């Protein structure tokens, strides 16, 4: 009897299909489909074709086989991929520790002029790649740059080299410029995370005798770990999409000797062509698809494996 009544109640409570949800979702879904999903699907489709006698022909995964194994393409592809990984490693190793350190310094309660530092360090992030690229190119120029003069002031002129023109240093130099530009992001995010740690927690720690550096390592760092995770994944996506900085500093041929070639510049040359090289939309789409898959798998790895293992604390 009771059960029947309960069932009847449920029946009465069941609402009609809520059409308005669909209607509200529709504009965003349409726009997103048009500008994101459709081009993405089209790119994936394009990579399975090849132009023969002015008409596209389905070739399955042959373009990918060329990209991985035919030395005409694979040399460039693996070189760009390795450079990209190196670019990412430099970004992670330099940007995050410095970002955390800066955030930790900023969150010292006694610090004067905090908002000035915060703004000054964050400012380059807002600048256009073109300004950053050309600015640094000028600073580092062996002819008119201030870098040799400044090094001379402190007696370190012998350390100066035309870094952007040397195969051994060019990629590291460009990666460090990228770090300089984006250092503000990890700083500001971690700073926000540090500020959200309640004061009582620190007081309790102090009562237990955990102070100074120990306090940072044992209490603050575990608490901001999820933020560092987010920053890492943002850096990963940004780095594997990177193109602008290399293009403005080193040109589309990513010299010297392709030592600064990233997947982005390889894609640009392949898709749009360069000087006498005519653009090849199909091989270009193949490179683009690989970039998509690399970024997708990196993000998936983070979401499903790493993020689940990070312990979150309720604060």
């Amino acid at each position, binding site marked *: 009897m009771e059960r029947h009544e309960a069932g009847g109640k449920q029946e009465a409570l069941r609402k009609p299909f809520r059409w308005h949800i669909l209607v509200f979702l529709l504009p965003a879904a349409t726009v997103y489909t048009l*500008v*994101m999903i459709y*081009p*993405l699907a089209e*790119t994936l489709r394009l990579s399975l074709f090849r132009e023969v006698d*002015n008409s596209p022909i389905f070739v399955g995964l042959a373009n990918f086989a060329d990209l991985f194994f035919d*030395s*005409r*393409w694979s040399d*460039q592809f693996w070189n760009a991929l390795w450079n990209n990984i190196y670019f990412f490693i430099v970004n992670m190793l330099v940007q995050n520790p410095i970002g955390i350190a800066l955030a930790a310094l900023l969150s010292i309660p006694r610090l004067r002029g905090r908002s000035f530092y915060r703004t000054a360090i964050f400012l380059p992030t807002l600048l256009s790649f073109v300004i950053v690229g050309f600015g640094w*190119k000028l600073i*580092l*120029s*062996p*002819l*008119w740059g201030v870098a040799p003069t400044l090094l001379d002031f402190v007696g370190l002129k012998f350390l100066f*080299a*035309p*870094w*952007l*023109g*040397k*195969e051994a240093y060019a990629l590291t130099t460009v990666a460090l410029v990228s770090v300089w530009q984006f250092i503000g992001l990890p700083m500001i995010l971690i700073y926000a995370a540090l500020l959200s740690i309640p004061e009582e927690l620190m007081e309790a720690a102090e009562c237990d005798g955990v102070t100074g550096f120990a306090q940072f390592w044992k209490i603050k760092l575990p608490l901001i770990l999820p933020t560092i995770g987010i920053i890492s994944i943002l850096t990963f996506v940004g780095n594997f*999409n990177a*193109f602008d900085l290399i293009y403005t500093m*080193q*040109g589309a*041929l990513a*010299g*010297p*000797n*392709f030592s600064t070639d990233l997947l*982005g510049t390889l*894609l*640009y*040359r392949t*898709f*749009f062509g*360069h*000087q*006498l*090289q*005519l653009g*090849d939309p199909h*091989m*270009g*789409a193949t490179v*683009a698809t690989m*970039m*998509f898959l690399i*970024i997708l798998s990196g993000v998936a790895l983070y979401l499903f494996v790493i993020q689940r293992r990070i312990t979150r604390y309720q604060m």
Partner: protein
Amino acid sequence: MDKKTCKVGTRFTAGITATAFGAAFALSAVSASAEDVTLTIESWRNDDLEIWNSKIIPAFEAQNPGIKILFAPTAPAEYNAALNTKLQAGTAGDLITCRPFDASLQLFEKGHLASVNDVAGMENFSPVAKSGWSTDDAATTFCVPMASVIHGFIYNKDAFKEVGVEAPTTEAEFFAALDKIKEEGSYIPMSMGTADQWEAATMGYQNIGPNYWKGEEGRLALIAGKQKLTDDAWVEPYRVLAKWKDYLGDGFEAQSYPDSQNLFTLGRAAVYPAGSWEISGFNVQADFELGAFLPPVKTAGDTCYISDHVDIALGMNAKGKNTEAAKTFLSWVASAEFAEIYANSLPGFFPLASHDVKLEDPLAQEFVTWRAKCESTIRSTYQILSRGTPNLENNTWVASANVIKGSDSPEDAAKDLQDGLASWYKPQQ
């Protein structure tokens, strides 16, 4: 991924905008005078708009009543994409400015450009001049050549006087002069950098190279597969380039193209490996006397060869409505009058027809006299050989920069180029 979609989007919009503008222009022109035929010229040379409107077009229209010309350029970077869109939509102008080699060849093969074999005046052009806009078998030419650029060395006459050296003619004299300038110490002997890479290939390898591979003879033999890039004639220029390193400025590895130009025009360097397109800029920037000398030959008395590279031409829209008028204009482009106006308005861009043209600019005149003294050729990588993957032109940039920096030996660099070319080019296999 994002980048790609976004770029395509821009290109598309640019195309549409350009088309819309083109149509608007055409409409207004037609309504202005209904009886006249109006020919629209598609071009990427928006820098030349003033010269076309004030000099070239009035000169033509004065002689050909009934034909009006509208010069409608697009931004250089957007030209190819915008032109393709217009041609496909059938809204392109009657006359089309042609990029050299494969970009235009593709348009001809797709039926967008008409043959100009029967245009009066085509007999004024040499096969080298026509090579940039002919089918591979040279049977059909589809654009009327307009101008070329010549390679050589521009030097600071005051600096040479000060140091006490003469313009060199042989390779030994060339290096002796550079040595002397270096010893004297007040000038950087030569202004070039490898940061942008193309300078090393274009102003280095393609500049001095023709003397070693004997111009057209070597270039055509390479295309036919009878010579290889690893042959002595093709490696020797690299051996010479490898010696340039000692005469370039400090940190030349990171010196870019504008850096090199400034270094020379500021009077800090004595020699500038050049293309003639620098002339008008240098005339304005430099406050010392400029001279030019030929790429030095191996031994005195050798035949000299120059890179007289075809750069710009004018073709006819195959689906255009005013074919007869377009032909009239094209044959005027092939005439001595056009050559004279064009060459004097844009010193450094030399007419390709065999007319005897009087140039007012002394430096440009110096360059153009070389045509009579030396054999002309074009850059070796441009015709046919840069069609495949890996791209020979791109690789030549990289190889030339590596050789000058000393990070690659001339022999290794040549072998890399040859391997790359042989991997797709049948006659070289």
